[in-house]
């Protein structure tokens, strides 16, 4: 059986101020997977990825990359890793091309091999025309793409993307998704952290949710969504209403004069609700999910975990 791309066992991290960022997490990511690591701010996502990429020193536990224990041969493991961090971490005064080629040099790639590879990546990511310019002149989205090009220069088998589309506009985000899907199809295993749950739902096959340093869920996106018991739909009405109608078997709330919120339990048929709306004279012109499905699941899961551990149920930050 093939070694997992990433295997984490009992990983703990206690920072100097005594904060327990990771409390013994176990995680496996199979080769070829597109894996999402989700969690609220401060949950331990970046710490986990920081340990894997050597930016954070672990307190305990073990980490293997394609079967290579980082405590035994981190240098060898690093050849398989490409890292795109959350924050811009390149010299803003350097030329775009130099940033990518310098990174190739750090991996011991000869220039004759690095130059065509850099050209291919910069073209694929729409940065070729900017290659001679200073990195500080790039837009935020371009800087993110530059970090992706830099992370891929040595052809890593495992790419770690820590919120790669944060602050990127929708059009650009979707083009980055297409790029990520393509390299995943070509064989690169991808681990992604994101606050955009729509991103995780549409890109990833498997998912782990981390909260307060513990993994609270680790399953496939499909299985996770199957656990969703209730979905809420927002219905836009053709004419304003004073009160919400009463529907047999369904819960309906009035959001405002022209909008209702309809809760549908698993197993219920939307047709039944629409028949009752029609019978009562309500004309519905459009409908959409109140939140992304995964987002609903994520929020309920994290809040449930918080309640169980006796913590305050802080508002969970999500963006969609």
């Amino acid at each position, binding site marked *: 059986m093939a070694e997992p791309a990433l295997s984490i066992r009992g990983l703990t991290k206690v920072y100097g101020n005594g904060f327990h960022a990771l409390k013994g997490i176990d995680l496996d990511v199979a080769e070829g997977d597109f894996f999402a690591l989700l969690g609220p701010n401060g949950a331990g996502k970046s710490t986990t990825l920081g340990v894997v990429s050597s930016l954070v*020193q672990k307190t305990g536990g073990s980490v293997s990359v394609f079967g290579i224990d980082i405590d035994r041969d981190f240098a060898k493991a690093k050849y398989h890793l490409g890292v795109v961090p959350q924050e811009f971490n*390149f010299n803003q005064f350097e030329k775009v091309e130099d940033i990518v080629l310098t*990174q190739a040099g750090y*991996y011991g790639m000869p220039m004759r091999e690095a130059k065509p590879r850099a050209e291919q990546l910069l073209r694929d990511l729409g940065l070729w025309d900017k290659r001679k310019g200073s990195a500080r002149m790039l837009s935020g989205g371009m800087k993110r793409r530059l970090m992706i090009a830099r992370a891929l220069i040595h052809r890593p088998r495992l790419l770690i993307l820590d919120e790669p589309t944060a602050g990127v506009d929708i059009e650009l985000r979707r083009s980055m998704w297409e790029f990520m899907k393509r390299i995943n199809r070509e064989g690169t295993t991808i681990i992604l952290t994101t606050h955009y749950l729509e991103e995780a739902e549409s890109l990833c096959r498997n998912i782990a949710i981390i909260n307060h340093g513990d993994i609270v869920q680790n399953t496939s996106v499909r299985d996770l969504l199957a656990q969703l018991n209730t979905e809420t739909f927002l219905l836009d009405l053709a004419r304003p209403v004073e009160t919400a109608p009463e529907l047999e078997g369904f819960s309906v709330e009035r959001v405002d004069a022209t909008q209702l919120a309809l809760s549908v339990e698993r197993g219920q048929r939307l047709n039944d609700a629409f028949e009752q709306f029609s019978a009562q004279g309500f004309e519905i012109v459009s409908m959409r999910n109140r939140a992304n499905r995964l987002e609903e699941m994520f929020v309920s899961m994290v809040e449930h975990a918080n309640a169980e551990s006796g913590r305050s149920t802080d508002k969970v930050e999500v963006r969609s």
Partner: protein
Amino acid sequence: MNAWQTWIALWTLVTKEVRRYMRIWPQTLLPPSITMTMYFIIFGNLIGSRIGPMDDIDYIDYIVPGLIMMAVITNSYSNVASSFFSNKFQRSVEEMMVSPMPNWVILAGFVVGGASRGLAVGLIVTVVSMFFTDLSIHHPWVTIGVVIMTALLFSIGGFINALVAHKFDDISIVPIFVLTPLTYLGGVFYSIHMLPAFWQGVSMVNPILYMVNAFRYGILGVSDIPVGGALVAIAVFIVVFFAVGLWMLDRGKGIRS
């Protein structure tokens, strides 16, 4: 990494460092040459002609080695301190940390890059000095050996300073409060034989005195201290400082949380 890959990584880091200070040459290469020209004009020509010979050598000739060494020391140190701290500040140090490049290559890359700036500035100052005096070198190998070793030593010092620094102020404290006083009191402008016995003794604990005098011996053939001992002392300091810098890097001091 195999030997060839390690060489590529080291070469990449060194050329990146050289490219950095060459790109901002009006900040890195030009100011020391202007400052040293002022020293030559004021201390060498204007005041020096009234001071008379020092150890039977014209005063301007006497101060040339010290001024070259002063430029080498301050530029080697400040190049690595500011460059590595900027890498920490901008987090571009992470580019190196996530790569398989061994820590000794990171340290050596910055040190060689910094030393190259120190030596480049030293060369510029030497050329400037030729406008004021005829320079002849008595012991070329000693001269070259001392200046290279000194540049390496202070580059390592700058690296350690940058590792422990938390803010930009922290990388200017050592040059201002330690290096500059020690350099001025290290016999750049005078022979320690001019001092009372007590202050001669105090001067002997100043490591920069040994470097300046060893370099002066290489150029002028005169020194206040035994040159062989000075060379050994500098070599020992290089080994010790390199080991300390590497130990700190291995433990992630100042760069890993």
